[in-house]
C-alpha cells in the first residue's frame, strides 16, 4: 500500500509536470532538424553504393 501511495503521488506529479511543460518538449524545429539529418544520412548511405 505504501508503495502504491508513493507511486500514485509520483504519477500525479509527473502528469502535472507534463501539463505545465516542466520538462521542455521537442519543438517543431527539433523535429525538422532530426528529419533533415535523417535524410542527409540516408543520402550518404545510398552514396556509399557508388564507392
Amino acid at each position, binding site marked *: 500500500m505504501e*508503495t*502504491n501511495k*508513493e*507511486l*500514485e503521488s*509520483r*504519477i500525479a*506529479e*509527473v*502528469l502535472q*509536470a*507534463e501539463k505545465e511543460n*516542466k*520538462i*521542455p*518538449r*521537442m*519543438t517543431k524545429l*527539433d523535429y525538422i532538424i*532530426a528529419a533533415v*539529418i*535523417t535524410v542527409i*544520412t*540516408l543520402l*550518404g*548511405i545510398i*552514396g*556509399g*553504393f557508388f*564507392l
Partner: protein
Amino acid sequence: MSRKHDVNKEIENEVYCGTLPVLPKERKYGFIDALLVLSGYCIATWSYTQGSYLATLVGFKQLLIGAFLAAIFMLMIYQLPVIMSARYGIDIWIWLRSVFGPAGNKIVTIIIIAVNFPWYAVCCELFADSMENLLGLFGIQLFNGAHLVLSLSCVIIGTIIALRGVGTITWTTRILVPLLLLVGVAVVIVGFTSVPMDVIWNYQPELAGDADKTVNYVLSIEANFAFVITLVGGMAEVPRLCKSERSGYYAGVLGQGAAGSFFVVVGAVMAIAMQHVTGQMVDDPTLMMATLSAPILGLSSLLLVAFANIGTQAVGSYIYGVMLKSTFKKSSYKVLVLVLGIYVALLCVWGKITEYFGSFLTIGACVYAPLAALLFVDFFLVRKQKIDLKSAYELPGHTAYRYTGGFNIVGIICLALGFGFTLVIYDPIKGIIHNNWLFMLTPTFASFLFTGILYYLLCKIPFIRDYVICKGPDKRPFDRAKTPPRQNLFFMPFIWLICKFITAPYKLKIDKHNMDGIKPPFLVYGSHNSFMDFYVTPLALKPYRANYISELEGFEAFGEWIYRQVGCLGTRKFINDQMLIKNIMKVIKRGDVMVIYPEARYANVGTNSHLTPSIAKLAKLLKVPVVTINMQGNYLQQPIWNLKERKGARLHADLKCVVTQDEIGKLSVDEILSRISKELTYDEYKYQLENKIKIDDEWRAEGLHYPLYRCRKCGKDFAMTTKGSKITCKYCGDSYEMDEYGQLHSESGEMIHIPDWYEWQRAFVHEECREGKYKLDIPVKVWALPNSVNFVDCGEGRLVHDNSGFSLTFDNYRTEKHETLKFPSSSMISLHTEYDYRGLYGPCVTLSTYDDTFFIYPTDESKDVFNPTKIQFATEFLGGLYT
C-alpha cells in the same frame, strides 16, 4: 546486519526506485551529462570486434559511411520514442507494457536478454584472446582448453562483482570508462602512427571469389544498424533522467552514433594496420599494441583490457539482473545474476560466438527492429504521444494494458511476424540471401518498415484499434434518462421464433384468463425464476410488443443496442430510480405493454418473494389494466444455483388480467397488491411434485448448498456441500438425497420440502438480527459496473454488514480514493445475489448507487463464510421486507 542482507536491500531499493517515475526536480542529466554516460556505455571492447568485422566486408571509406551515417540514420529514427521516457520519467520497460501487456512484456524481456547477452560472451572471448596472445608473446605455452578456462574466469569474476551489488558496480564503472578511453586513445595513436595514412584510407578487403561488393556493403550497413539497435537494452534507463526531451534524444543519437561509432572505426583501423603489418586481421587491441609498438605497451594494455572486459561483464550482469528483477519481482537478484552468468558461460563453452558475430548481431536485430518499429508507431501514430501511466504501472482499477490475460495479442503477433520477415529476407546463420530486392533495404530496416506499417494498418481496423488503444474501461455512467425505444417491429418475428425454438423442448403451455378485450397499454407483473422468463413472456403477450425492465448487467452481457431493440429499460436493482418511473410512464403513454418482474431477482428455491405496495402504487399511477404472468417450470429448467439445463422440465404460464381499466381507479393499493400477490404466489417444487415432472439428471442437487447452507442437524452455517444428487453436511455428515421430483430424503426416511429448509434458515438469521448478533466483516473483491459497456476492477476491499446496513471500503475508481460507501439497511428491501455469476465467477452480491453497481465477490480468505443467501435474508429482514 549481514552483507547478504545489505545487497538484497540495495537491489530491492534499486529495483523499486529504478521503476518509479523520476520527478522533474530529480532529473540529473543535461545533454552533456547524458552524452558522456551513454558514450561510456558504448565504448566497450566489443567496438573493436565490430570494427574488425566491418573491415572484412568493405573498404575504409564505405566503412566510415556505415559506422557513422548508418548508425546515426537508424538512431535518429528509433531513438525518437525516448522522448516519452524523458517526458514521463520512465524507462522503456514500463512503457513496453502498453505495447505487449504486462505478461507479454515479461516474455519480451527474456527474449531481449537472450539475444543481447551474447555481447558479454564476446567480452569474455576477448579477455581470453588477450591473455593467450600476450602470454604467447612472452613465450609461455598454454595447455589445451586454457582459452575456455580464461573466458570462464572472466564470467566468474564479472558475476562475483555483479553479486556484490550497487556500490561495487558504481566503483567498477568509475574505473572502467576512463580505462576504456585510455585504451582507445592508445589504440588510435598506435594504429594511425604505425602504418601510413594512405594504407588505411585506401584499404579494400580481400574478398573471396564469390563475394559481391554490393552485398558486402549492405551487410556492413546491416551490421551497423544491428550494432546500434541492439545496444538500446542497456541504454534504456538513461533518458528518464534527462532534464529535457531534446537532451535525452540527441544524447542517445550522438552517444552511440558518434562516440560509439568512433571506437568502431578505431577497431577497424587497428585491424587494417595489423593486416598490413602481419597479414593477419585481429580484433584484440592488446595484441595490436604489443605487435605494432612494444611488448611492454602490450603488457600495460593487457591489464587495462582485462579489467575492462571483466568490468563490462560485471556491469552487464548487473544491468540485466536489475532489469530481470524488476520484471520478475519475486525472484532473487542473486539467482538471476547467476542464471545470466551460466548463460554466458554456456556461450563460452560453445566457443563460436566470435565466429558467428555477424549472425548473432542480425538475430538480435531481428528482434530489436520490430520492437523499435512497434515503439515508434505505437507512440507517435497509434497513441499520439499519450500513455496511461496508471495502467502501465498496473495500479488497482487501471486495466487499460491488461489486454488478453496480460498479453497484447496484436503487439506480440506483429513482433513475431517482424522477426519472421527478417528471416524471409536473409538467413543470418548460413548467410543466404532469400530476397535480393528487400535485402538492399537491409534485413533490419526492412523488418522495421514491415512491422511498423503492419502495426499501423492493423490499428486502423476499428475493433483492433479499440483493443490496442484501450483507453481503459469506460467509466461513464449509464444514461438512465434515455427514452427506451419501442420493441423493434422487424425484430418481432425473430424474437417469437427464437422464443418458440427455445421453449419447444419443454412443451410450453400458456393459459390466458380474463384477457378478452385487454389491449395495450397495460402493465404486466411477472414471476421471476430464470432467464427462461424472457422467452416465455413474449410468447404469452403475442401479438403485442412490450418493453421490459432489465438490470444493466444484461446490457453489458448482450450489448446495449440489442437490448434496446428488444425493448429493455436499463436500471439498477434496489435503488429508487425516478428516471425509470418516468420511462415506464413514457412506454404506457405511447400505448405499449410494460413488463416488470417485481421480485427483481430469480427465485432462490422456486418460491416467490414478498411484494411491496410500491408495485400497486405504480399501477394506480399509470391508470392501466394490470396483468400477471405466473410461469411454472422455468426455475426447474435452470435453477439459479446450477445453471445447467434440466431437459425433463415442463413449462406452463398463466396470463391473467387481475385489475381491469374500470377497477384501477376504484381499488385501493392494498386490494391491488393483494390481487397481484395472490396470482404471483408459486412453489416450483410443489408444481413439480403435483405434475410428476421427472428430472433425473445425476447432478440434479449440485449447487443446492448455496441456498441451503445451514445443516439441519448440527446447526452450523456454511456447512453443506453437494455432489450428484446429494446434499451433505461436511461437519456432521448429515445427508439428503434429492429425488427425481425435487424432494429431499434423509437417510432415516424423513422427507424435506426444499422451500421449508430454506425458510427454516431464514428464521435463524432473523433471530441473529433481532439479538444484534448478525455481523459480516470480510475481505472482498470488487468490480463496478458503471454502464452497459464494461466492468471496472476496483481491486480488493472490505465488506461489513450488520444491523445498520452495508459498508463497502475499497478503491473507488470514480473518486480515485480509498473510501467507504454506506448503504443503510432501511434503504434496501433486498439485494441481488448470484451463486455462480455467468457460470464463471462464483457467488456474489451486488450493491448499487445511481451510477454504479458493485459486484462483490469473496476472496480466498473469505470464501468459506460468504453466502449470498444469508446476506440476502439479513438484508430483507433489516430492510423491513420480513418482520
